[in-house]
């Protein structure tokens, strides 16, 4: 990467952010909205400085539970994707179930989960983050495996390689680009899962609970500040996934042009 390209890759998104914040500030000022309708970016720094300790502890609670749910989703989703990718019968059997499960609004699952595992707040939150994020991973892994060109299998199979060897040496690495594509989606979805649990069934932990306390106290700038903090965490996790992708599937990247 040239110095200019490196500069652009930082400066362009920053500039976009500044333009976005300026537009937001202008919109609130222009419409004359009070904070209970829409807070402006200039309302956010006071909200952060007043509750910075809460943002740190609750942000951490949200983050670790999201990452835990995401890791579970990676393990379970990959296993499920392998089963569906290798077996036509299992694919036919599981796809409708999976699609049906995914179509259920997760907000309706929150009270059920909260009732089944009463008081297990951490577990419940991790579970919901997992439930909402394993679907894209399972689908992408299963598609990656089932669309593997037969020649790729044949070059190893003709030498007497076992199924496990073929999976390890060819199918798995070849599926990595699709896997990371799905992981980017799953990472942001996992945050939605965590916060659903924290907001719909608040138990005093996580940014979702902070949002809820902002609501009960009519502290509207605080609510907006929580949303922005969540967006920030989402971006951080997303770029961690991008960095991992560069390391493990960087070969799939083509230089543009």
């Amino acid at each position, binding site marked *: 990467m040239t110095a200019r390209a490196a500069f652009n890759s930082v400066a362009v998104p920053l500039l976009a952010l500044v333009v976005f914040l300026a537009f937001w500030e202008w919109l609130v000022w222009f419409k004359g909205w009070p904070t209970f309708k829409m807070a402006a970016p200039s309302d956010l720094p006071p909200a952060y400085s007043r509750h910075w300790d809460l943002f740190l502890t609750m942000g951490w609670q949200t983050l670790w539970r999201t990452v835990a749910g995401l890791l579970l989703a990676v393990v379970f989703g990959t296993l499920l994707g392998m089963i569906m990718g290798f077996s036509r019968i299992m694919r036919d059997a599981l796809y409708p179930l999976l699609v049906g499960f995914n179509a259920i609004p997760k907000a309706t699952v929150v009270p059920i989960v909260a009732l089944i595992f009463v008081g297990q707040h951490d577990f419940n939150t991790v579970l919901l983050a997992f439930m909402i994020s394993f679907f894209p991973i399972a689908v992408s892994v299963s598609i990656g495996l089932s669309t593997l*060109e037969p*020649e*790729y299998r*044949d*070059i*190893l*199979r*003709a*030498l*007497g*390689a076992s199924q496990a*060897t073929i999976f390890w*040496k*060819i199918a798995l*690495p*070849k599926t*990595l680009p699709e896997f990371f594509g799905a992981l980017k989606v799953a990472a942001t979805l996992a945050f939605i899962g965590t916060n659903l649990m924290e907001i719909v069934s608040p138990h005093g932990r996580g940014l979702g609970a902070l949002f809820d306390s902002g609501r009960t106290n009519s502290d509207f700038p605080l609510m907006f500040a929580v949303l922005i903090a969540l967006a920030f965490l989402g971006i951080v996790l997303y770029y961690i996934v991008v960095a991992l992708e560069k390391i493990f*599937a960087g*070969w*799939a990247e*083509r230089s543009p042009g």
Partner: protein
Amino acid sequence: MQELIKIKGVRHAYQTDSGPLPVLDGLELSVPEGGFVAVVGPSGCGKSTLTRLVAGLMKPDAGEVWLHGEQVRGPRPTVGMAFQNPVLLEWRSILKNVLLPLEIVPTKLSRKQAEERARFLLALVGLEGFEDKRPSELSGGMRQRASLCRALIHQPDVLILDEPFGALDAFTREDLWMTMHQVKEREPFTGVLITHDLRESIFLADQVVVLSGRPARTQYVLDVPKAGPRTLDDLYTPQAADRLNILRHQIQIAQGRAPAEGGAS
């Protein structure tokens, strides 16, 4: 000379939704050790099925496939394969791609020796200096050369080439034909080449087998005696023209576009 590959009365059908689809019926083929046989025939006549049978990737419904005096019942590490699609692994360097079969097949070579052999093969096909490149950095012809090295790295008895030059442009293809002759001189192998290109078949092989339309049987066998090293000029002799005419006529018969008897040009 010992028959290295022997195919006797092979019959095979695929199961499709509309019933069994016979692709091979009464296929006979034999290749002596060190021989190089080209198989030509109309599209979809079961040529690729033939390669999968020889490689042991599938079993025929009837008939026998013998390799080295042993009946083929499954995959065996003494076979090397190259396809029209070079199927190089994008996440490995060219050198690591060539070394792949040695990770499966038991080998007496040390790691260092194996790498030396891979470098030797890559130099032989003209890929010296490309060992550490990724497949995506190579042209189609170069990838096919690398794929050829991978097929040869474990010193297979039999090299199966399933239209390896089919997707290349005409000039690159002719380059690779010359490369094939150079390789065969340094690394002798027994080969079966599936191709659609009649010029390719008489230039590379010492025997051309024409398969009939589906279900395929052996329809015609043309011997191409080898007199010294071949050059591309050999393709433009009256002799070559005669051979091409015979083969073209046989293909027309196989396609059902010419009557089976008489009418040969």
